[in-house]
């Protein structure tokens, strides 16, 4: 999965981690997302309908950005289901990168089921002009 959704496409694939104790149970689905890039930052937009701030966890480390969103709506007692098209499973999105993000200034906003994350680029990867002697 990590080779297929890099934040900053690269050929380096990190080893899979195992034994995440606080990972919630159950099947996962991948949300619709989009990454755009400017010189200063990456903009990540993820569609997470049905997820509120309490059910959302965004983490970042040196190699990946992970978004886990749990849908908190429970069907009330007395409601009969006639037709289902949506899926109740947790949203999970993992984007890999290679130390490309400056963690201290990540800004995330969840509004109306859309998560907008601004990931500033780490200084080392910003384009710079090099003087030639």
């Amino acid at each position, binding site marked *: 999965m990590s080779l297929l959704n890099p934040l900053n496409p690269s050929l380096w694939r990190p080893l899979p981690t195992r034994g995440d104790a606080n990972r919630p149970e159950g099947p996962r689905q991948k949300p*619709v997302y989009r990454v755009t890039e400017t010189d200063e930052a990456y903009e990540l937009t993820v*569609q997470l309908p049905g997820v509120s701030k309490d059910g959302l966890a965004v983490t970042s480390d040196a190699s990946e950005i992970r978004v886990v969103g749990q849908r908190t709506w429970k069907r009330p007692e007395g409601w009969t289901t006639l037709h289902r098209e*949506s899926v109740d499973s947790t949203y999970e999105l993992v984007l890999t990168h290679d130390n490309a993000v400056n963690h201290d200034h990540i800004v995330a906003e969840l509004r109306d089921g*859309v998560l907008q994350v601004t990931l500033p680029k780490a200084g080392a990867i910003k384009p710079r002009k090099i003087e030639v002697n």
Partner: protein
Amino acid sequence: MRIIRYHQPSARSYAPVIRGYHRSPWSGLEIEIDRLFNSTLGDFASTSSTQFPVDLYEDKDNAFVRAELPGVDRSDIHVEVVDGYLTINASRKTKDGHCGQALSVNRSVSIPDTVQSDQVAAVYENGVLTVTLPKREESKPQKITVAVK
């Protein structure tokens, strides 16, 4: 209440299952493959720009329609009940500076006569639109006692 996505009924789907007497041993597999192609091709043709998932529920007093519409302003959602159809129309505008991705989605659900059309209410929360359609009084399940002479 039915979603309008009409599947052509095939002769095979109505054939009675009498232990292989009228159906070939492959008909079960064929029906499954037909269904797989219908759903797969249907989804590719219509994902992400014209369709959104819709769930239907009911209880004894109301029918409920839940539609997943993340990232839409409340003013851009239009819910209409016309002629026995509930139509949900939503458009998503992009922020300034991004290349045009304004898209508009539209979906209609047929609702039976048993709904009080003038009392339909809708709530938009966390990207999910929930439309509540109260049932008419006379169509709620009622207990009728019959005196036997």
